[in-house]
């Protein structure tokens, strides 16, 4: 079978043009691999200097709680985009539903999905790795609530971006949580990060959630300082995302972008 290089080039050209029109695709190509490298670089540095029996628990606990954030924050945006891909969004918005009711519905479905995901991860971690996430006790629920609230703020922010820029911004919705990951101190303490990045981590509620998780796993006591810090930051982020969304929604109603989402 002979291949026509011109036709192959046509496909390459098509994607070059698309990338030129959608700069967010660069995140996929350049920034995402860099973030992965940064994350594993800091993790390696942390692991090199630690001789802790709790290391496996830190990593597994970090991973299980990270999934809560990642899934919820992307799920809200992805489910919103499903309505656009299905060309159903105008039918939905033309109905009596308000946008906040729509968002609440998306949020609830994410909540149900994450409960199912958490339960299966909890069972698997217990059976295969002898790790009981419930060893975090009542504090687990508090950590989980803070993670969920931050993920919801993130999801609302994602939906606002989709409203403003359309579904072409979609790939960014999947990647955004990973921008946060290296600074969120998921697998290593904030202290491992260079001073500038520590400042970024300090203003992220989830960094305090993961700090709290490690503290509880190590000492058996709940870290109220981290909890309250995360809660206060979450109030700020939630307020910010609601204000941002309201602003964008009014803007797209006025500009007519709402009906041009598909």
């Amino acid at each position, binding site marked *: 079978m002979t291949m026509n290089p011109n036709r192959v080039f046509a496909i390459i050209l098509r994607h070059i043009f698309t990338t030129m029109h959608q700069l967010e695709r660069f995140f996929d190509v350049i920034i995402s691999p860099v973030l992965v490298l940064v994350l594993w670089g800091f993790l390696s540095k942390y692991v090199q200097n630690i001789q802790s029996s709790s290391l496996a628990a830190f990593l597994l606990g970090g991973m299980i709680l990270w999934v809560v954030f990642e899934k919820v924050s992307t799920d809200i945006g992805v489910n919103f985009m*499903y*309505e656009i891909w*299905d*060309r*159903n*969004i*105008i*039918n*939905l*918005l*033309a*109905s*009596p*539903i*308000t946008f906040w009711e729509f968002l609440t519905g998306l949020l609830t479905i994410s909540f149900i999905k994450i409960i199912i995901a958490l339960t299966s991860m909890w069972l698997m971690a217990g059976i295969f790795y002898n790790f009981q996430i419930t060893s975090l006790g009542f504090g687990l629920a508090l950590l989980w609530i803070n993670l969920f609230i931050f993920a919801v703020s993130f999801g609302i922010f994602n939906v606002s971006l989709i409203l403003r820029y359309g579904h072409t911004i979609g790939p960014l919705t999947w990647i955004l949580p990973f921008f946060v990951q290296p600074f969120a101190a998921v697998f290593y303490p904030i202290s491992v990060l260079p001073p500038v990045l520590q400042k970024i981590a300090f203003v992220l509620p989830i960094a305090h959630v993961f700090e709290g998780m490690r503290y509880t796993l190590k000492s058996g006591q709940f870290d109220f300082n981290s909890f309250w810090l995360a809660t206060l930051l979450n109030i700020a982020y939630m307020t910010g995302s609601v204000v941002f969304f309201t602003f964008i929604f*009014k803007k797209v*109603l*006025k*500009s*007519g972008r*709402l*009906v041009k989402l*598909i």
Partner: protein
Amino acid sequence: MAKNLVLEVKNLRKSFGPASAGFVAIDDISFDLEEGQILGFLGPNGAGKSTTIYCILGLIKPDSGKVHIFDKDVTKFRSEIMVNVNYASADFHLPWNLTVWENLLVYAKLYEVPDAKKRINELLQIFEMSNLRNKAIRDLSTGQRARASLCKALLNKPKLLLLDEPMASMDPDVVDKGIKLLKQIQKEEGMTVLYTSHNMWEIEEIADKVIFINHGKITASGTPLELTQQVLDIETGEANLRDVFIHLTRTK
């Protein structure tokens, strides 16, 4: 005796883009719709028909003017009003992976339809879709999909139904059946309908009154026959909206 006004559009204006170089999609249009009336909303592509419908649905905020449905401002009482309004367009589908029944059940919840299952069965029977209830939308033909969309649009027995080219890209046989069914249901349920189409025959068949819009302005209105006589300046007993359309579109 004066009939109730279902829809009142007054001095509606909408432009897009910056104020200096913006595009005026709707330029100070006013019209109203009485209860039980079917209004044909005609105009070339980009004339402002869909923008007007989106303003009526509260999905675009007008620059000025007002849209009142059932004597209430749509920008203030949108959710309350929309329980008694519905919309369908060939441009939009129902979710493809869901079956006809699942889709209609979801929309029945959204429109707070009482006794939803009974109403869905009733509509499926009227539109001869009972045997397709468990089929996914993606497995339906274009005509069947349009009928499913019409079922959705009629779920809540809307007092005002907005149909934006609901039968575009369908064969004449399906359009004919669809129009007849719509007229029958409209008579039985006393709906008020705003209907846009590029198929003049459809409008002649269904509309009591026609408004012609071009460059965002209403350029003519009347019954299909009145419009034919006025615009083409001929004595005739038959409506000819196709020639009216061409004449009005080409006349500046």
